[in-house]
């Protein structure tokens, strides 16, 4: 296979993977209003757990890591997602219940940095700064894949997984649960006044989002076969924010568009460009700056994103299913304050 197609399928994989990551952050930030600045930490944990649980026991591999259970795909991926969810519960219980949005953001970004610091320094956990490598390519032996054919194969696998997770996420966002999330996002005080236990819903949202983060991270380590601390500095969280803000907060199709525009075309495509002689890394630096500036421009001119959150209209089927003809407003009752009053404008409220 030519290098061209190798690149193309790598980009396709990246698009699907960031679509999953974007869905996870979107349910937290876009739907529930939780400013999770530690998002990349959940991605990383998912990646490490997916990798470490699928590797053989660490003795003799030249790496140090916990687990090493040789769990096959996709069960290791599931484990990665669940581990991230577990971390979300911990974080939520400690921080989410007591802090208002901005303090929470501070604590979460601090948490993200500390988690990074510990993983980087404490080698027995996930091999320290070197990270995990030689993670088995999933299903490669089953389908007798070569290194070349693995890339398109796994891009398709990631696409299928993204499709399933999209379906599941749509079920959630279109359900009363998703609606309650959005109510909390718009005004948590009102949601509480309506009897909603805000914390419980925020916890649920964190849990779902972290699962998506974990799975997205797991796919990353499965695709590349390695994962180390340099791939998840806190700034990466910002990239996922950029994906959902550019694409369209609260809209799953928008997230796919954002993933294509920001992560795939803006960040990964230039990474294939050769370095400018004498300036290693310069392209990447400029690229990241462009992402930051693009985000300001989007927030200013089109805060709703390329594909805005859609208005969830009353389903027609529902209106038709109703018993009687109910297409108009009822007659309006009125008290009579003044004699002969009760004069009401026609056709609803206009003021």
């Amino acid at each position: 296979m030519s290098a061209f197609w190798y690149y193309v399928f790598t980009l396709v994989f990246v698009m699907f993977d960031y679509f999953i990551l974007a869905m996870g952050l979107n349910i937290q930030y876009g739907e529930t209003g939780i400013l999770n600045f530690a998002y990349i930490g959940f991605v990383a944990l998912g990646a490490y757990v997916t990798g470490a649980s699928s590797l053989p026991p660490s003795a003799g591999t030249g790496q140090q890591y916990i687990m090493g259970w040789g769990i096959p795909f996709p069960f290791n991926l599931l484990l990665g997602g669940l581990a991230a969810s577990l971390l979300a519960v911990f974080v939520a219980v400690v921080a989410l219940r007591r802090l208002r949005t901005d303090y929470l953001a501070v604590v979460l970004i601090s948490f993200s940095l500390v988690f990074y610091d510990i993983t980087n320094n404490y080698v027995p956990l996930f091999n320290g700064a070197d990270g995990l490598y030689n993670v088995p390519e999933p299903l490669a032996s089953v389908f007798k894949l070569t290194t070349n054919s693995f890339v398109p194969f796994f891009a398709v696998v990631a696409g299928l997984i993204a499709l399933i997770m999209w379906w599941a996420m749509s079920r959630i966002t279109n359900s009363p649960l998703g609606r309650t999330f959005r109510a909390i996002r718009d005004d948590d005080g009102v949601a509480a006044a309506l009897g909603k236990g805000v914390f419980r819903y925020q916890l649920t949202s964190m849990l779902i989002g972290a699962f998506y983060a974990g799975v997205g991270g797991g796919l990353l380590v499965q695709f590349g076969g390695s994962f180390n601390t340099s791939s998840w500095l806190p700034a990466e969280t910002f990239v996922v924010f950029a994906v959902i803000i550019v694409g369209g907060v609260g809209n799953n199709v928008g997230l796919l568009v954002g993933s294509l525009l920001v992560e795939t075309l803006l960040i990964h495509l230039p990474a294939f460009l050769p370095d400018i002689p004498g300036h290693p890394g310069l392209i990447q630096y400029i690229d990241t700056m462009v992402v930051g500036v693009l985000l300001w421009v989007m927030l200013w001119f089109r805060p709703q994103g390329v594909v805005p959150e859609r208005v969830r209209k009353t389903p027609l089927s529902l209106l038709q299913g109703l018993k009687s003809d109910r297409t108009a407003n009822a007659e309006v009752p009125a008290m009579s304050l003044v004699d002969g009053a009760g004069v009401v404008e026609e056709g609803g409220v206009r003021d």
Partner: protein
Amino acid sequence: MTLFWLSVGFGFVTASVLAISAVGLSLQFGITNYINFAYGDYMALGAYFTYVLNVEFFHLEIWIATLFGSLLMGVLAVFVNRFLLSPFARRFNKTFYVMIVTFGLSLVILNVVYSIWGPNVRAYSMPIERVVHIGPFLLTKYQLITMVIAVALMLGIHLMLKGTRIGKSMRAISDNTTLAMTSGIDTKRITTITWFLSGSMAGLAGTVLGITEGNLTPAAGELFLFVIFAAVIVGGVGSIYGAMAGALLIGLATEVSVVFISAAYKLDVAFVILIFALLFRPSGLFARPGKD
């Protein structure tokens, strides 16, 4: 025991850097009511401004370079507020829009620094000085000067807040922005001055961090940021004196922890203290009502 006292000495140095940066962050938070996630990168950029004046051009003496580097950062902070942050803050009433903007700013500044100076470790040009014994402590002249600067600056901030009209206006805005505006305080001017102070202090903190550590890297400020957050929150968000106390506590705790655990995790100690503070005293040691 010697090690313990040595770490206490270093603790005071870290506390000095922290105090400068935490007070700078706190001043700005009190006035604008959103958190500047690019503050760590302001520190880095300020440190590199000093580097330019000290090493690349002019070859100014290190402390003179520090002065101008910091002031330059203050001016830049005013411009950034004027043309980026303030418009967003005015337009969106939910603070998290501005916070995301500052998060993006952090990324932009960091990569500007990377693009210009590269990822390599740099150092200021400073004459090598012997370490001096002061009681049980063992410190370099640069570390001592840093401590003196920090103490003097804290004193200056205190006098400004209590004694000058600008300082009083700052406190008034910090307590209640709407009330301050209706009582005729020029909030725009005060905000500009605050950003200048905040930016300068970030630049100064970043530079002295580079001086006391003996090196500077683009990401140094960013990694230091959560230690600052810890100091600010432990002390009570928006409270200047709380930030000073928080800086002392966190500075000492992180350095003294080296006696007991590996130095690689010393900054993480700040996070542990932060978590405990949040669990048991969520509004901080010196919390002011109304900012909660």
